[in-house]
């Protein structure tokens, strides 16, 4: 198969099996020599950007795995800002803007608009969405 450009969109929280499948798919895509234009986190997927998730030591820490994966490969991980605000996922700038006591977005994540999803789709060969259970 020729090299493909993928945009991935994740709609489920890091506690969901869908989040794990998305990560395994992303790993396999890069391992297969394909490109990931952007990973867009929408709806409950925005919880993946929270630095405040605490996972018991004997359980897989998907949020941590996502962050490590995105950092290691220098990927463009974008969190939908409107979906994030509604769910209490805020970076420093948004916490100040709305006078909230704490920012909880881990470093390496960009909060931005839905236009970023569309822009990535325009630059990609395939959009692959992961969500639900």
């Amino acid at each position, binding site marked *: 198969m020729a090299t493909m450009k*993928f945009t991935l969109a994740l709609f489920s929280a890091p506690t969901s099996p869908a989040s794990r499948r998305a990560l395994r798919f992303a790993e396999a895509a890069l391992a297969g020599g394909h490109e990931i234009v952007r990973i867009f986190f929408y709806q409950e997927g925005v919880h993946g950007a929270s630095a405040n998730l605490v996972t018991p030591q004997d359980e897989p820490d998907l949020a941590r795995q996502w962050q490590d994966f995105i950092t290691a490969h220098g990927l463009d991980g974008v969190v939908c800002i409107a979906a994030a605000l509604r769910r209490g996922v805020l970076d420093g700038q948004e916490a100040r803007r709305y006078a909230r006591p704490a920012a909880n977005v881990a470093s390496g994540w960009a909060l931005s608009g839905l236009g970023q999803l569309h822009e990535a789709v325009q630059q990609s060969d395939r959009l*692959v*969405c992961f969500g639900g259970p």
Partner: protein
Amino acid sequence: MATLHVLSHSPFADSRLDSCLVLMSVRDGLLLSGDAVYALQPGSAPHAALRTRPAGARLYALEEDVRARALSAGDDVELIDYPRFVELAGEFDRVNSWL
């Protein structure tokens, strides 16, 4: 090949599988992942429903999800890993995940 449909909800008490089968064409594929692999349970209504898919439409299931649930798949199901999933996403024209 046209659309690769991806299901992850259990087909019991959920209408996604039924609606997906309505939308499918002979050139489409259906990938069962997560709890959607319970549709492979022999003797169940979803298992019978899978047989009503258009002739020629391919059926796939994520091998890890089938194994995790102690299910088995018939000869008409291709069990796939993630590298194959990526390959299919490229072979089909589009991927339609039923979120």
